[in-house]
Structure formats: structure tokens, C-alpha cells
């Protein structure tokens, strides 16, 4: 029934593969983003398991020195730039136009360019395994002078810089697209207090990217010039400053954390009410806390640098600002808890992941307070305590929310339900495996194990905690494998049950259209009268019959 006004498309563009290569449809681009990111997640996850294998026992010789540093650098860089940020961009692509009742994003071709730049950036980074001297090995923040030509010869570091340039460009284009789409293309009746909280989080995600990313681009450009053009921005022997790079990197690096966390929180704020059969508790408080976290997150970067000997006044300022982030974060946690109060809780797989997010993110948030209190940070910074802390935030928090999102929106994206039994198995394996992996790392850090060491010689508790952690990583891997098996069974074996428009009885507009949605998204969009347009429709239908 769709009105096709344009000229009939060129036939080759309709091929099964070619139609994906030339698409400018936000849903297909979103799906490509998500699947590519899952691919990189599997690769970078395997790198993580390799590191755990090397650290399982003292003086292990499985993956030594250079290889360990390469694997560690690629794991971190890939997880941040090729997994979490792009998978969020993928969800945002697929969901934002549907959630606000639009037919596509504001600039569909720019959107396609964003995706292809992301893929190119990923290929450049992973192609650097074949570079002279191997890939970058100075860690994901690549502090000079270690990342300068004298200490990192070969081209790995240059490919790393090139890939960061391509990926920041991709993210910036995407961010502009989301902001324009959200501000201009909302359907009738969808005021700022009626847009889904996930859309709020994507708006703030995009603003943060635009504010923070150029500083990273500048920092790595200066590093590239140092390496290739003979400048000395970061070479102290010629008057350069290493601390300048540290400031520039973390001015980007800390907002980047919230770039990743806020959309994950947005997903929680979508999924939790649906499976509690309730509205979100304190919509405005949750939306405003998103804005507040983003604002304060611009003022906390130097808490990554407490050990460089800053003036104590600055240490004090950055402690107070870092603690201030905890307040709106707490507001979110309490509102989510209140959302489950007197609900009718349905424990489908998405809900399990989201409840685990709340449990685990709380731990990651609280362990952050030890780092904000700068004298304590002097003790725990750069140790395994930090590794444990940010994995509780990034894996226990963000990745669990993303898995919740995958299970929740999978039927909308692909039209079939994932299997609940496999979904729950995968959840419990990941939940147990995650905690077994990362809880002991807090203790390792307090015992004095620094991060980024390829081996250690201590036996006793060091060995036990490390071995436990390695066993946990194997359990986690199994959990992810079960998820992949679930996808395999659902689609390739065609065992997945067809999803209707709205299998979860959800609240937001993406469930108004078919699963998967047609190219043009909606035949008509109802006038939006609240933040839960689909529930309004269900009630109207019930009244009429």
C-alpha cells in the first residue's frame, strides 16, 4: 500500500547484499551498526580472555610482554570505540526515529556515511595487527612519551591515531544527526516531557560527543605531528608537556564514560517500567538527572590524574565535582527502585539484565567514591581496584543494559522472539561469570597488583584471586556463547516465534508499527498525549470494546 512516488530503483540495488550496502534506511543502518559492534565485542572479548589466561598463574608464559601490551591496548580501544559507542549509535539509529514517530533521521545519507566511517575505522584499527612492529601497545589512553616515536617505533601507534580520527568523525556526524532529528522531527503532541527517556539520553549522548570529541581529535593530531612531522608538543626534552596530553585526553575521556553510561541508563528507564507494568517513577527527575550528570561530567576529568602531583586545591576541586556526579546517579538508582515498587514484575530476559544492571552499577558507582577521595585514590589508582571498578561500570553496568536492550528490541528489529530459556541461561552464566571475574580484582588491587602488568611472581592470595578471575572469564564467555547460540537458533534454524507488533505490551511508539517495521515506519502516527502513547491506545481500545 505504500506510496512509491520516486522512480523505480535500479535493479542491482535491490540485491540481498547490495540493498544493505546502498541503504540509507535508519533501521538497516542501525542493525548494521549493532551487528558490527557485536562482532567487535566477540573479538575484543576474546582478547580479554587471552589476558586472563596469561594472568591465571604466576610467571605464566602464555602471552608475554609485547603481545600482552598489544592485546591489552586493542581490548580497551576496541571495547570503547568499536563496541559500546557504536552499538549505542546503532540502537539510537534504529530506535530514535521510531520512538519519536518520524520516518527517518534528519540526514539519512550522512547517517550512512557515519556507519561506513565506523567500519573503516574498525578495519584500520584491526588491520594494524599487520603493521610494522605490530599494533599500538601504549594502552588505550596512549600517554606520551611512551606513545612517541622513540619509545613506540613502528606504525601501530600511527594506525591507532588514524583510526581514532576516523571514528571521532563518524561519531560527530552521527551526533549532529541525532540532535537535529530529536529537536525537529518529533511527531504531533510529543513535547519534551513526553519523549521516551532513551531519546533524552541519546540527545545528551550526542551533545557530550560534540563537546568532548574534538579535544581527543586535537590531542591525537598533536601526537601524530610529534611522531611524523618533528613537532614536540609532548616531548619534554624540547619543552613539550606530557601533562598537557593527560589533560586533553581525560577532558575527553571522562565525558566519554557518560557518553556510554547515559544511553545504557536510558535503556534501563525504558525496559524497567514495561516489565514492572508501571510508569517510570519520577520521569522529570530521571530526565533532569541525565542532564545534570552530563553537565557535571565535564568538570571531573582530572580525577584520572590525582597521582601527577597537582596542587592540592585542584585535587580538592576535582574530588568535590566527582562526588557531585554521585548525587544525580543516586537519584536514578532510587527512582528505578521505586519503579519496581508495587509492580507486577515480569522476569523475562530483558528484565533480568536490567535488574542486574541496577545491582552491579550500584557497586561500580560506590567503588567510584574511593577514587574521588583523592588520598585514597593515590593508593588504589592504577591498580586492579580500578580495573574492577570500571568493569563494574562498563561491563556489569553498560554491557548488561545493552544485552537487556538487545533481548528487548530484538523482536522489533528482526520480527522473531529470542528463546527465553537460552536467554535466561545466558543471563545467569554472564551474571555469575562477571562477578567471579571482577569481584576478586578489587582485592588484587588492594593487595598491590598494578594494572597492565603481563605477569606477577607472588603466589598465595594473588594467585588465588587471579585464578578465580580467570575462571570467571571462562564462565562469562560461555554466557556470551549461549547468546550467540540463541541468535543462531532463532534465525538460522528459524525456531524463533514470530513477534507481533507489541510482544511486551510496551509504552512507546516503536511498538505501534509492525515487527520488523516497514521502510516508511508508520502508516499513521497517533497524536501523542503522554509519555506512554501505546498504553493510552490500549486503554482507548479497551474502553471502546
Amino acid at each position: 500500500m505504500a506510496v512509491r512516488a520516486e522512480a523505480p530503483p535500479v535493479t542491482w540495488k535491490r540485491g540481498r547484499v547490495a540493498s544493505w550496502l546502498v541503504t540509507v534506511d535508519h533501521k538497516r543502518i542501525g542493525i548494521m551498526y549493532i551487528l558490527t559492534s557485536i562482532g567487535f565485542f566477540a573479538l575484543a572479548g576474546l582478547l580479554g580472555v587471552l589476558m586472563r589466561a596469561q594472568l591465571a598463574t604466576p610467571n605464566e608464559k602464555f602471552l608475554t610482554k609485547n603481545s600482552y601490551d598489544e592485546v591489552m591496548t586493542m581490548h580497551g580501544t576496541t571495547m570503547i570505540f568499536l563496541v559500546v559507542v557504536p552499538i549505542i549509535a546503532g540502537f539510537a539509529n534504529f530506535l530514535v526515529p521510531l520512538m519519536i514517530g518520524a520516518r527517518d533521521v534528519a540526514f539519512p545519507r550522512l547517517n550512512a556515511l557515519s556507519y561506513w566511517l565506523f567500519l573503516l575505522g574498525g578495519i584500520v584499527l584491526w588491520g594494524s595487527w599487520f603493521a610494522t612492529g605490530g599494533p599500538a601497545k601504549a594502552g588505550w589512553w596512549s600517554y606520551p612519551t611512551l606513545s612517541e616515536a622513540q619509545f613506540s617505533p613502528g606504525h601501530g601507534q600511527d594506525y591507532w591515531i588514524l583510526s581514532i580520527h576516523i571514528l571521532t568523525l563518524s561519531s560527530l556526524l552521527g551526533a549532529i544527526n541525532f540532535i537535529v532529528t530529536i529537536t525537529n522531527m518529533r511527531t504531533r503532541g510529543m513535547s519534551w516531557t513526553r519523549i521516551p527517556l532513551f531519546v533524552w539520553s541519546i540527545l545528551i549522548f550526542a551533545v557530550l560527543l560534540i563537546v568532548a570529541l574534538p579535544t581527543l581529535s586535537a590531542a591525537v593530531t598533536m601526537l601524530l605531528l610529534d611522531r611524523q612531522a618533528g613537532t614536540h608538543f609532548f616531548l619534554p626534552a624540547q619543552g613539550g608537556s606530557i601533562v598537557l596530553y593527560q589533560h586533553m585526553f581525560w577532558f575527553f575521556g571522562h565525558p566519554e564514560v557518560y557518553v556510554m553510561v547515559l544511553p545504557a541508563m536510558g535503556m534501563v528507564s525504558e525496559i524497567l517500567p514495561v516489565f514492572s507494568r508501571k510508569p517510570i517513577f519520577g520521569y522529570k527527575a530521571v530526565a533532569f538527572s541525565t542532564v545534570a550528570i552530563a553537565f557535571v561530567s565535564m568538570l571531573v576529568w582530572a580525577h584520572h590524574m590525582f597521582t601527577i602531583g597537582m596542587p592540592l586545591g585542584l585535587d580538592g576541586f576535582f574530588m568535590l565535582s566527582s562526588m557531585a556526579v554521585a548525587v544525580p546517579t543516586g537519584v536514578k538508582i532510587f527512582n528505578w527502585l521505586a519503579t519496581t515498587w508495587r509492580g507486577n514484575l515480569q522476569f523475562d530476559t530483558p528484565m533480568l539484565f536490567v535488574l542486574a544492571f541496577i545491582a552491579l552499577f550500584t557497586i561500580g558507582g560506590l567503588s567510584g567514591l574511593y577514587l574521588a577521595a583523592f588520598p585514597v585514590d593515590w593508593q588504589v589508582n592504577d591498580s586492579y581496584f580500578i580495573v574492577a571498578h570500571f568493569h563494574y561500570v562498563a561491563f556489569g553496568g553498560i554491557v548488561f543494559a545493552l544485552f537487556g536492550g538487545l533481548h528487548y528490541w530484538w523482536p522489533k528489529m528482526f520480527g522473531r522472539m529470542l528463546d527465553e530459556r537460552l536467554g535466561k541461561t545466558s543471563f545467569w552464566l554472564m551474571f555469575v561469570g562477571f562477578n567471579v571475574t571482577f569481584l576478586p580484582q578489587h582485592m588484587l588491587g588492594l593487595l598491590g597488583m598494578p594494572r597492565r602488568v603481563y605477569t606477577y611472581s607472588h603466589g598465595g592470595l594473588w594467585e588465588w584471586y587471579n585464578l578465580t578471575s580467570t575462571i570467571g572469564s571462562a564462565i562469562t564467555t560461555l554466557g556470551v556463547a549461549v547468546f550467540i547460540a540463541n541468535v543462531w537458533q532463532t534465525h538460522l534454524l528459524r525456531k524463533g516465534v514470530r513477534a507481533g507488533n507489541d510482544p511486551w505490551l510496551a509504552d512507546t511508539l516503536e511498538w505501534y508499527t509492525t515487527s520488523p517495521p516497514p521502510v516508511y515506519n508508520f502508516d499513521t502516527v497517533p497524536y501523542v498525549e503522554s509519555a506512554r502513547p501505546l498504553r493510552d491506545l490500549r486503554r482507548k481500545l479497551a474502553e471502546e470494546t
Partner: protein
Amino acid sequence: MPARVRGKLSLVVVTCCAVLATAGVAAASNGGFAPESPHSTNARRITSAYWLIFGLTAGVFVIVETVLVVFIWKYRSRGRDRTVEGAQVHGHTRLEVIWTVIPVGILAVIAAFVFYELPGIADAPAATDAIHVTVEAHQFYWQFDYPNGVRSINDLTVPVGRVVDLTVVSPDVVHSWWIPALGGKIQAIPGQTTHTWFRADAAGTYTGQCAELCGLYHAAMRARVIATTPQAYGTFIASGAAADLGRSEYVGACATCHGMHGEGGYGPNLQQSPLLAQPSGLEQRVRQGGIKMPPVGDTWTAGQMRALASYVRAHVYKGAASGG
């Protein structure tokens, strides 16, 4: 349904028991629930700030997780259909204010305590007999310069009970000085000097290692602080050089790549290298580095070079390759 719930519950209980059992063992050996037992006032004050935060965060943790588990249990569907709605509560302004203000209060307590403890952590006590030591962090060893020109590698010998004031520098990449029992970290940043201090309150050997990724052998960059009696320290400092300077130079700077006995490893085998028998050639190589070798000894004194030359001659060199 209840049976499945019970199954999961028992899984959770078993996991908790296992965790508690492990925790008990670890706590018995004081392992990993607080920073390493402090042996300097700054480290002790950091540990007390740690315990304050631990107490408050543990309280918040228990409250949040308990509420979460209780709500999950209490408001589970019990077979109610998805179409049955929960209470349609949209919010509560007074609650929002309460759970904004209470965390602010908790954070204020932590911040106030940190500022209260800070002077005793950041500032070395005013002492006329403070010992000033320069810590030079290298890829991949630590070099210590004592007031009278004595040098040592990787082992810092200090007297118990005296303030040791450290000036930390690096000629190559960023490193981070960290002896957990004696206080927090401080980065060694090329082009800058940073400072920290400690006062060991008991004799003993305190170990630590570089905490900032500094390259290939980051993991091998270990340091020991040997706190000893004032008499033993006096003897050490009067000797003009660490008794085993040559050995500690070789072990700290050379053995990482060339092996403890020069047998080779990441770097080539040295046992038959003619360089070891020529002090001037050895000095040039150590000062300037080679193709892949960093200039490990670029700041070494003539005395250090002599000590190294005599040590490698006696303990590493096995004679020139025969027939070569």
C-alpha cells in the same frame, strides 16, 4: 514457577556462602579488603579514610541491594498476567528531595574527613633530620640518589623513624612510584619533578612496583624499601656506595632482557660478548644504547660503570667465544 524460583534462590544462597567462605579465608590473612597494612603515617591516614568510605558505601550498598531484592521478591508476578498493571504511581516530590539530600550529606562527611586527614597525608612532617632522596625512574629500574652521592638500584635503604623526602623524576617515559605500605602513588613524569614522602615506623622490607604502563618490562619494574636501624643505615651511607652496586645494576637494568646470568632472553646472550671485557666499550653501550637496547645507563656515574664492569667480568662473562 515457585520451584524454579526456589532453584534460583538456592543458587544465590550457595554463591553467597562460597563468597563468604572465600572472604573469611582472605580476611583471616588480611588479604585484599583494605590497602596493605600501613607502616607510615601517610599510609595509615589513607587507610583510615578508606575505612570511613568503606563503612558508608557498605551501608548504602546493603540498603540498595536489600531493597532491590525485597522488591523483586515481593512484587514478582506470582503468575499474574502481563496485562495486569502495577500501581500507576508517577512520582513523589518529597521522596526525590530526600534521596537527593541524604547522599549529599554522606558525600559531605567523606569530603570533610578527607580534608581533615589531608595535611598528615600530603605534607611531610617538619623534621630537621629528613633524608632527601632522588628517585629516578628508568625503563625498567629505579635508581636512588642519597644526600652524599651514594647511589643504589631498586633497593632503597632508609633508617626507621626518619622522614624520607622523595623527589621523583624520569628521563624516559611516565612511571609511577608505589610502595603500598608506605603511602600512595606519585607519577614520575619526564620534564617535571614530583614529590612524596614516608616515614617507616618499623624495620622491614616493603615492596612495590611501577604502577604506570612504561613499556615492555613494566611488570618487572619492582622496588624495595629496606627500613633498617639508624646504625645500619649509617654504615650503608658511609660506605660511599651500596656494597653490591654492580650486582644491583646488573640485576636491575641488564638482567631484565639479558637474563640473570647473561644467558639471553629478550636481548642477546652476553656470556661470550667481548664488550663485557672492555670497560670503555661496555660504558659506551650502556650510556648510549644499541639497536633495540635503551640507553639504560645514561645517567650513571663513572663509579657505577666501574662497579658494573667488575661485576659482569666476574659473574657474567664466560670468555670470548672459542674459535671466533
